[in-house]
């Protein structure tokens, strides 16, 4: 397993760092966005910024599903589940995300039947084993997770399971990238493309970023060397004045994506005309809704949803941080009112959120590339 040893090798990491310094034109300032929250986490965890020259800046993108979910959706989901016959089921990383009147975890403490599930299939199982209750799965995630929800809905329909529904908050990454590129205060030179989203959608959906916007995209893995190599690949293109989509994460991401997953999504979901994103506002065709043929299993079609819109607490600057306009520590609440223990914004909850990543690794500085565990 030479391959694995290579990835561990600190010399290679040092080399990649050198190559980045060699490629980066000192007369330019490079702004590279890593779209995926997993990359943001890795960048802070390994202190990768310290290996980059000052003129290669990493901007954190919108790829953290709980972070971009506006508070109103959480409130809506929780208000439906206030019915005593309901079970509110969600992934663990939803549990501490604050709604206006508390997080799902706090609602649980007040007596709501809230359950962590690790798979949407397990929410279905909960419905089977609790036939007198209605189980509502609060679905979040990008294209990585949406196909699993789609298959779960297909199973529910095939079984004719009457007491199960999905409150669908699935979003799609491409329109968010477009919104960021369209926003006037954002100048970017290239993208580190998301790893696991791309196992589903493949690399083609990024073509327009290269062809129409003239910005290179490199789909990347999550190891320190993966990310550094992706930055090298981006800088090589920029130096030659090229803009292409490249796949650094070939060992996991097929160029064409996962067709079975895309079919399942297309069968069950359609695009919403628009959807609100925290920080980015309303983005057209940026989220998935459940098709009418699955209406019986769609909490929004089956029950009446209040559809509340709430603005984030005034001092919280989650929107600016999500857009990459502010760095986490520049938020007035960072590390004071807002900490991972007492999060005000969702970016402080998820390990993919840039505020939590910054707080845990940059603020406390426990791990750097030099002393990272090597097993």
């Amino acid at each position, binding site marked *: 397993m030479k391959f694995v040893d290579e990835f561990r090798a600190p010399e290679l990491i040092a080399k990649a760092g050198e190559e980045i310094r060699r490629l980066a034109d000192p007369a330019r300032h490079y702004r590279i966005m890593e779209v995926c929250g*997993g990359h943001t986490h890795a960048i802070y965890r390994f202190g990768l910024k310290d290996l980059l020259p000052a003129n290669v800046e990493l901007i954190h993108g919108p790829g953290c599903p709980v972070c971009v979910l506006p508070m109103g959706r959480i409130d809506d989901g929780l208000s439906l589940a206030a019915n005593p016959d309901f079970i509110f089921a969600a992934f663990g990383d*939803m549990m501490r995300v604050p709604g206006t009147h508390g997080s799902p975890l706090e609602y649980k403490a007040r007596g709501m039947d809230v359950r962590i599930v690790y798979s949407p299939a397990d929410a279905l199982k909960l419905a089977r*084993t609790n036939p007198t209750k209605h189980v509502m799965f609060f679905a979040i995630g990008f294209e990585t*997770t949406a196909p*699993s929800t789609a298959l779960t809905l297909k199973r529910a329909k095939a079984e004719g399971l009457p007491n199960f529904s999905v409150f669908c908050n699935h979003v799609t990454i491409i329109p968010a990238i477009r919104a960021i590129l369209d926003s006037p205060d954002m100048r970017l030179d290239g993208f580190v493309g998301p790893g696991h989203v791309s196992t589903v959608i493949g690399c083609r959906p990024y073509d327009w970023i290269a062809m129409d916007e003239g910005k290179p995209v490199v789909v990347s893995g999550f190891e320190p060397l993966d990310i550094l190599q992706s930055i090298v690949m981006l800088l090589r293109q920029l130096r030659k004045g090229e803009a292409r989509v490249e796949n650094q994460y070939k060992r996991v991401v097929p160029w064409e994506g996962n067709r079975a997953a895309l079919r399942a999504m297309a069968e069950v979901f359609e695009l919403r005309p628009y959807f609100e994103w925290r920080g980015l506002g309303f983005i057209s065709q940026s989220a998935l809704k459940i098709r009418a043929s699955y209406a019986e299993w769609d909490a929004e079609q089956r029950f009446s949803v209040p559809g509340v819109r709430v603005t984030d607490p005034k001092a919280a600057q989650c929107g600016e941080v999500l857009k990459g306009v502010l760095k986490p520590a520049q938020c007035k609440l960072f590390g004071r009112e807002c900490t991972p223990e007492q999060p005000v914004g969702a970016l402080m909850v998820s390990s993919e959120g840039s505020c939590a990543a910054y707080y845990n690794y940059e603020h406390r500085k426990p791990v750097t590339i030099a002393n990272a565990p090597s097993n």
Partner: protein
Amino acid sequence: MCLAIPGKIVELDSQNALHAVVDVVGVRRKVDLGLLQDEPPVPGDWVLIHVGFAMSKISEADAVDQMRTLTMLGEADAAMEEVRGYGLENDGQDSWGQGPQSGNRS
């Protein structure tokens, strides 16, 4: 991160062709193969698992690599907690984790 957990297919479910038992560092759980319909895995194959669904086939070397990535990222415990949680083995009684690192990532 969208946790993607490597596992080895040890057994296909004779009752349900879309289910298989995977082994993730010694922990065995059932996962759904519905997303790999176009190239159904067989026992011995390695897959990446996300929220209880196998989402891609990978090589053994890449599986080892992925597990190490999770360890390096400090996500290995969360990954194992997620795998142990599949199938609601403890009868739907979820284990309330310790803070923001617990539970799976979407």
